């Protein structure tokens, strides 16, 4: 069941209605059953695996609390966390070892494995008490809106909300609007930009630099619209059940340097890796001075890259970003001193920062998108070509089926403005008066949903798969 499908919308609507009309003590079991039903439609065997790892981690956490402070606790944590990492690594490595196997990692494995690892480590570190009741714990692990692509929510922020789901009513409109933004990002922006990027990768040999430029500059926007759209649908779906999730993006392309970019992009993954990889590794390497810092940053960045796939392209992607992170961290003190002595330079750097970030991210994204390093070379060598056939290439770029794809650009600007408003003020529409305005908005949202439903019903091929649902 894809997020962008009439099936998902019907499933979600049915679950929300049942959730709303159920007595309070039935709501959490209902969410658990619907989450497993959702997962069951993808893969029966992986549903059994999800249940098995959930049971193992539930009892492990209880045992960890019983033996806290003893050597057994660290041994048990090490064994179970290693088993979880091996479980995840198996699906990542399998396509390399078995060419005939399905190259895609089963849905959600990354996300629920990360949730379980952080839960066990938090219990081991004494930051979290082991959850006594199995049903809320299993619901946390399998919560279907967050199963496809996160965000990676920690147990400490999720479980208290399950206990207090009487507030869900006020979030129906908020969640619907958030989902509508997600659908717009995916169907109007990402899919249409994907047409241009797809065209570019298919015309790298045209002898013009236009395909290279399109591949370089549009893919980061496509990736952002695709992934943040997916997360908007996930967060919006969760809000319908009264579950607020952490944000995964904070205007990443307005970052002034690469360090800031990684604090604004896939925030729940980067903060997860910061807490459970970077900090422990940095602790172990703290006596090595700047070398230890460089090593910790590189390991962290490489893991982010390799999580996307075990290919040479992702290794280069990780190293590429590591270099910028290391240079920025090592020069931070000197830059701070320089800027305090030259305030005008800081203003200039703040203006040029987002341009620098976008170019670094765009160059790195070629390694992310291109299927091989040979294609990467073609993209960059294409950039060095002259604008020889630019007229013919431009005509081909906007020819059918791409002739309506330009809509992505105004839609991107509009959605960026709406998103900025949402981040700053939220969607506090129920507080609005007068009543006619409120009901106009309710009516508009309903009309948008009917439109989305009709588009999905009428679409022959449906939407393209989400890029990040593959990881």
């Amino acid at each position: 069941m894809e997020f962008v499908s009439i099936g998902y919308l019907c499933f979600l609507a049915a679950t929300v209605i049942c959730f709303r009309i159920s007595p309070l003590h039935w709501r959490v079991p209902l969410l658990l059953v619907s989450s497993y039903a959702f997962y069951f439609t993808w893969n029966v065997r992986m549903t059994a695996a999800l249940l098995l790892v959930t049971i193992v981690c539930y009892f492990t956490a209880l045992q960890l609390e019983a033996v806290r402070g003893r050597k057994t606790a660290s041994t048990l944590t090490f064994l179970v966390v290693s088993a979880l990492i091996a479980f995840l690594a198996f699906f990542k490595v399998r396509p390399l070892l078995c060419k005939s196997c399905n190259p895609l990692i089963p849905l959600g494995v990354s996300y629920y494995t990360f949730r379980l690892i952080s839960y066990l480590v938090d219990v081991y570190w004494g930051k979290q008490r082991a959850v006594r009741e199995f049903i809320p714990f299993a619901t946390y692990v399998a919560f279907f809106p967050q199963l496809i692509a996160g965000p990676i929510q920690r147990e400490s922020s999720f479980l208290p909300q399950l206990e207090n789901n009487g507030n869900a009513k006020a979030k129906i409109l908020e969640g619907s609007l958030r989902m509508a933004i997600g659908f717009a990002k995916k169907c109007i922006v990402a899919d249409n930009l994907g047409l241009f990027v797809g065209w570019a990768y298919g015309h790298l040999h045209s002898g013009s630099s236009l395909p290279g430029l399109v591949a370089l500059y549009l893919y980061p926007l496509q990736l952002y619209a695709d992934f943040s759209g997916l997360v908007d649908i996930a967060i919006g779906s969760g809000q319908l059940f009264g579950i607020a999730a952490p944000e995964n993006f904070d205007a990443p392309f307005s970052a002034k340097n690469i360090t800031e970019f990684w604090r604004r992009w896939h925030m729940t993954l980067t903060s997860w890796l910061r807490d459970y990889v970077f900090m422990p590794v940095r602790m172990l390497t703290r006596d090595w001075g700047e070398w230890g810092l460089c090593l910790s940053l590189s390991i962290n960045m490489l893991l982010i890259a390799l999580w996307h796939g075990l290919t040479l392209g992702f290794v280069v992607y990780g190293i590429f970003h590591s270099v910028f992170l290391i240079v920025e961290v090592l020069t931070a003190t000197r830059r701070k001193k320089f800027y305090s002595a030259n305030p005008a330079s800081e203003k200039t750097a703040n203006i040029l920062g987002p341009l620098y970030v976008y170019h670094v991210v765009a160059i790195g994204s070629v390694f992310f998108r291109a299927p091989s390093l040979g294609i990467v070379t073609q993209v960059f060598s294409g950039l060095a070509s002259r604008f020889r056939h630019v007229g013919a290439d431009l005509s081909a770029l906007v020819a059918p089926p791409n002739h309506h794809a330009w809509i992505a650009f105004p839609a991107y600007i509009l959605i960026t403005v709406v998103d900025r408003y949402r981040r700053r003020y939220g969607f506090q529409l129920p507080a609005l008066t007068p009543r006619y305005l409120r009901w106009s908005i309710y009516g508009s949202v309903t009309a948008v949903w009917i439109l989305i439903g009709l588009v999905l019903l009428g679409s022959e091929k449906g939407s393209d798969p989400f890029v990040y649902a593959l990881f």
Partner: protein
Amino acid sequence: MDGVIGERLTNTFRSLFGREDIQLSRTTTANDIKEWDSLMHINLIVAVEKEFRVRFTALEVMSLNNVGDLVDTIGRKVGALKN
């Protein structure tokens, strides 16, 4: 922050973050000091280790939730050294 450990810890914070206005309490966390990010956290741990001549384990550092936990851990370490 009161106590010998609290005063020395406040001075360590002020020196590391370059801010004389830092006031610590047992409930102070990284959210209360703008410059206290994951990179500075390890620098802080190293500075505290130097100041109090103690050595933290990874588990001790990862278990810290606020400045109060840090003071207690330092207290245990220093007490153990004296004993």
